[in-house]
């Protein structure tokens, strides 16, 4: 009995420590290469850049715990930077621009949910379609030629760049707040429990009376909302509206989730570990930049990191099962 409990906590501790450990190692390595790495300006930079990914990562994790996937997050981010920019330029105060944008995120999320649970279209195809839809609409809304929307109103960059508290921008605190809310959702709210139940054993959940359709639909809406928030942060950071700025973020999200130890078979996972994994990836990206790696290496690195994450996932699973 005790041995069993010991094994349980060992695994839990190992999964949680290992992400933090990897983060520590990466920070250490890059600091050795360039002591400026742990300097305040760099830390601020890294955290500011992580904001959209942190915002998306949590909800994405929950969706994957339930056994579903959403490949449209990158598209939603792009579209929402465009709408935020447009509404802002149209004269509305930025706050209301944000509200409208978040509403749009909810709408797209609801659309994803509709396609997946009501029309029963395979999530991969449904969300790939919405991704194209979002990028397409975003491109339509952006001016021909340059493709991006510039000239955003004064103060747009405050959200993602200003030194609001402890040198960190409000966007970061928003991301932290979202993360905390999602953790509460996962651990303390009934829908959070249902998320894990559906991913763990959908038949058992249905038999017990869980409304699978409703729960999964809500999860997709949450992802849409968070992606929209990420879009607002991105638009603020770049002072731009750019429909393709989010491309590849779905891949980043998947890598972060896998690196964070969430099984893609569903049922188990951790929002916090995903967020730490996001930090690992941003540190890695920043560190490689410091080292002088040209930007066109990014794609390869991403691919390699994903493959490494998969390998780790397999090894860890087999070790624990033994």
């Amino acid at each position, binding site marked *: 009995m005790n041995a069993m409990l010991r094994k349980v906590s060992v695994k839990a501790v190992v999964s949680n420590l290992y992400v933090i450990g990897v983060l520590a190692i990466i920070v250490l390595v890059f600091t050795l290469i360039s002591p400026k790495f742990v300097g305040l300006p760099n830390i601020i930079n890294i955290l500011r850049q992580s904001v959209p990914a942190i915002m998306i990562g949590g909800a994405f994790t929950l969706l994957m715990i339930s056994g579903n996937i959403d490949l449209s997050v990158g598209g939603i981010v792009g579209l929402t930077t465009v709408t935020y920019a447009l509404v802002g330029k149209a004269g509305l105060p930025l706050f209301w621009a944000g509200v409208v944008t978040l509403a749009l995120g909810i709408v797209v999320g609801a659309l994803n949910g509709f396609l997946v649970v009501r029309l029963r279209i395979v999530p991969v195809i449904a969300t790939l379609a919405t991704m*194209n839809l979002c990028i397409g609409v975003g491109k339509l809304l952006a001016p021909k030629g340059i493709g991006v929307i510039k000239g955003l109103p004064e103060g747009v960059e405050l959200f993602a760049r200003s030194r609001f508290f402890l040198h960190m921008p409000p966007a970061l605190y928003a991301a932290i707040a979202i993360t905390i809310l999602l953790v509460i959702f996962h651990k303390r709210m009934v829908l959070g429990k249902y998320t894990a139940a559906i991913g763990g054993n959908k038949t058992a959940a249905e038999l017990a009376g869980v409304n699978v359709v409703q729960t999964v639909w809500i999860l997709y809406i949450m992802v849409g909302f968070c992606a929209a928030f990420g879009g607002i942060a991105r638009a603020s950071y770049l002072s731009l509206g750019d429909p393709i700025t989010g491309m590849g973020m779905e891949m980043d999200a998947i890598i972060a989730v896998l690196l964070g130890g969430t099984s893609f078979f569903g049922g188990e996972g951790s929002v916090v570990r995903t967020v730490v994994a996001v930090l690992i990836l941003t540190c890695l990206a920043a560190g490689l930049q410091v080292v002088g790696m040209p930007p066109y290496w990014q794609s*390869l690195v991403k*691919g390699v990191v994903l493959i490494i994450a998969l390998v780790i996932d397999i090894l860890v699973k087999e070790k624990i099962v033994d």
Partner: protein
Amino acid sequence: MMHTLITEVRQKANGKGMSNLSFITLAMFGVLVAVFGVASLLVPRFFDINNVSNLIAQQADIIIGIGVTFLMISGYFDLSVGGIIAMAAVLSAYFSQAPSAASFELGSGLGIPYGLALVLTLICCVGIGAINAFFIVKMKIASVIVTLGTLAFSRGIAMIVAQGDQRNTGLPPIFKECGSFTFVGTLNLAVLIMIVLLIGALIVEKKTVFGRRMYQIGANQTAARLSGVKVDRELSLLYMLSALLGGISGIVMASKFNSGNCALGTGYEFDALVVTVLGGTSVFGGFGSVAGMVIGAFILGILSTSVNMLGFPPSLQMLVRALVIIVAILAQRFALDRRNV
């Protein structure tokens, strides 16, 4: 295949009923004709012969569509094809570029004879296919995730070798032949390659044991294993074939533009999905056809060209693709449900 189709149409006339696959293929052919008709009416100068032959030249979609269709029939995804196209394009340029003490790196390649360069390129592509096969078949990881990774990986190689740009100097004159060598009118080598591959694919699909196995694996992998089908081997070969086809497509595209551009093929993996699904191939496996995929490619081609010629912004293309795939899935499901009840 045409013969089978005709026989089945005759059988239907005799009340014997045609298979679901023929029904869907025929239905989509009908949609193609309808779309063609509407486009001819609505779009000014649609009937320009150049335009029509441009449609025939949707070769990239069709060539990679073969691989994607085969894998979908078997019940799997391959999202890495877009990246493989870029990788093949850039590598074919890099390998055959003349080495020079040029002022910038991008102008200097390995100077390998073109034929050999192509072989090497294709070997690299098959290598990517092998990586896919390893993680998906051996490690049993979801094909979506693995192929997203190899998509990034292969495009990454393309971007590194082309340093984010393209390699278009110092290429041997034969480099552009694939894409521009024409014999009958506008029929160029690229189109010929596409036709040859298509015929090959149709033969494989309808007439070979290898082709039959795809359907068996897709229809019920457990039963296939219990019936002695070497499932792992077949799937691995399919992934390598898909990568190979991506490579051929990339080589042809590089030839057409006479440049190895690392941005080639962006989004093509989704296009391949669209035309595959449009053609009637079911995401759940065991059902579908390359013939349908070709029809789907033509339909998409007409829609794209019409959008262009009607003066809509190019970004509408993405919207069109998104809507088309959803509508296709729903419509085909509806049609088959009603037919089979």
